[in-house]
């Protein structure tokens, strides 16, 4: 069924009895051309672009839980392409341009809302750095405007602009950034991929990666053996666990990142605001809740929940940036498990095992990358060559001396 305004009208007039399931719940087949391990946003996007761009439809996406239950449903829904380094910026700009056409492409309302992002600067040096970053963005066609103090005041007058300790000197504004309804992205990609013949299989956990003569021949799952000549792993958060099945150690640590939502408020925050003096960022959901977060907790974790000192740190960041937030009640908080890579940048690459591909290491920037990651991963799986915008995301880049250290923090995963 194709979704349209006409369908909404028709179903409304007939008591909403005619809606079909958005996507089927198939049994796993014996064999596929490609198996994608992990039915998160990136895995489902990969399946969609394999089918729609490369015509490869004999594909299974294996998800150990349910769709939308992992990090695609646990993030703060921000999309943007305001990066600096030439190995990053064109990739994230590709991703943002895919977001812009996504809903028409997959015929699904993912509520892509380009409400802008404002990165605040609190010193002259930070303003210089943002001018440089803005220039890098313009080189990639991403746009961006450098605002002075008064420009920030017009946009967000309630911020603590004239603070004595961290006065706001200006900011970098990307108008095309915004937010997206995150779990709708999973459902939309699953529905679109399924309509092209991809099997999206939930509650199917991979227990082994099968190899013969050094190359991949399939996987074992808790629902039986499935054969495929290409197995594409896409399980950020659990990358270490899954790739250990193929005997690989990765340049990744798993860490917990917390996020928070306040009670629902009237519209107050126009886009996304990031605090350049502390680590704090905030936006407002369509339901009115303030959605905000800060740093990772900083120690290895698979627990999907964090500790109170980080909650306190984030709340302090919020209070110093916009004191009025102290009047709002924090409604809930949660934790997601991040693949923290050694330089803060991701991997989309082949492995030493022929037929085995790896996508991960997204740190806490995975959501915005969802369509770009799927597009480039599909390109890699279909053609065995990296997409031109993802050429730097090699697994061996530390061995060869080509890290992509956007933050300049070195090989220390909990500092990115």
């Amino acid at each position, binding site marked *: 069924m194709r979704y349209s305004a006409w369908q909404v009208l028709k179903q409304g007039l007939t008591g909403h009895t005619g809606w079909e399931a958005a996507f089927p719940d198939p049994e796993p087949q014996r064999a596929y051309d490609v198996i994608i391990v992990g039915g998160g946003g990136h895995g489902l996007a990969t399946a969609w672009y394999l089918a729609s761009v490369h015509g490869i439809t004999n594909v299974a996406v294996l998800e150990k839980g349910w769709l939308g239950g992992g990090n695609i449903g646990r993030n703060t829904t921000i999309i943007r392409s305001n990066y600096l380094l030439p190995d990053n910026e064109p990739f994230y700009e590709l991703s943002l341009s895919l977001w812009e056409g996504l809903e028409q492409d997959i015929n699904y309302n993912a509520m892509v809302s380009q409400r802008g992002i404002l990165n605040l600067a609190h010193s002259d040096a930070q303003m210089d750095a943002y001018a440089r970053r803005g220039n890098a963005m313009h080189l990639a066609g991403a746009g961006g405007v450098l605002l002075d103090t008064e420009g920030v005041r017009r946009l967000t007058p309630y911020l603590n602009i004239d603070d004595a300790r961290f006065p706001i000197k200006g900011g970098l504004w990307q108008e095309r950034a915004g937010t997206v309804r995150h779990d709708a992205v999973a459902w939309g990609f699953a529905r679109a991929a399924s309509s092209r013949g991809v099997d999206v299989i939930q509650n199917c956990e991979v227990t082994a990666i099968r190899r013969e003569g050094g190359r991949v021949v399939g996987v074992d799952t808790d629902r039986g053996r499935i054969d495929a000549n290409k197995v594409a792993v896409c399980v950020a958060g659990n990358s*270490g*666990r899954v790739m250990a099945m193929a005997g690989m*150690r*990765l340049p990744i640590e798993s860490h917990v990142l917390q996020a928070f939502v306040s009670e629902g408020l009237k519209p107050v925050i126009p886009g996304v605001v990031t605090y350049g003096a502390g680590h704090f960022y905030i936006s407002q959901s369509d339901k009115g809740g303030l959605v905000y977060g800060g740093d990772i907790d900083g120690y*290895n974790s*698979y627990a999907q929940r964090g500790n109170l000192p980080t909650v306190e740190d984030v709340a302090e960041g919020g209070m110093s940036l916009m004191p009025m937030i102290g009047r709002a009640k924090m409604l809930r908080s949660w934790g997601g498990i991040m693949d923290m890579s*050694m330089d803060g940048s991701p991997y989309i690459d082949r492995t030493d095992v022929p037929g085995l591909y790896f996508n991960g290491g997204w740190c806490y920037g995975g959501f915005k990358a969802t369509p770009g990651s799927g597009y480039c991963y599909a390109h890699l799986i279909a053609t065995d060559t990296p997409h031109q915008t993802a050429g730097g995301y090699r697994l061996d880049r530390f061995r060869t001396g080509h890290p992509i250290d956007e933050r300049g923090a070195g*090989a220390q995963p909990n500092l990115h």
Partner: protein
Amino acid sequence: MQIPHPLLGPRDAAEFVYLGDASLLQRPVVEDVATLGDETTIDAYHEYLHLRTNPAGRHRELWFHEQGDRSWLVITRDTLTHEILGAELATDVVARGDTPS
């Protein structure tokens, strides 16, 4: 989270700085500086610096008591539950020839 410091008793984890996997105690030893550029030496350092086992479960890791006695501890912790299973001074771990991996 509280860290059971072997000398100071239970301390708030916020007093500590986290470094990572305790295998970082075993830096590759280069006997002869002439071999520093060899592929095997580079491989050994790459593995030491950049690759992690990253287990879900029991994990031995280095914490530095920065806001305390400035000692390095080797903490054994379950990464699935955050339960702390043991805490030792890193100097003791090294002195008895223990090699966390």
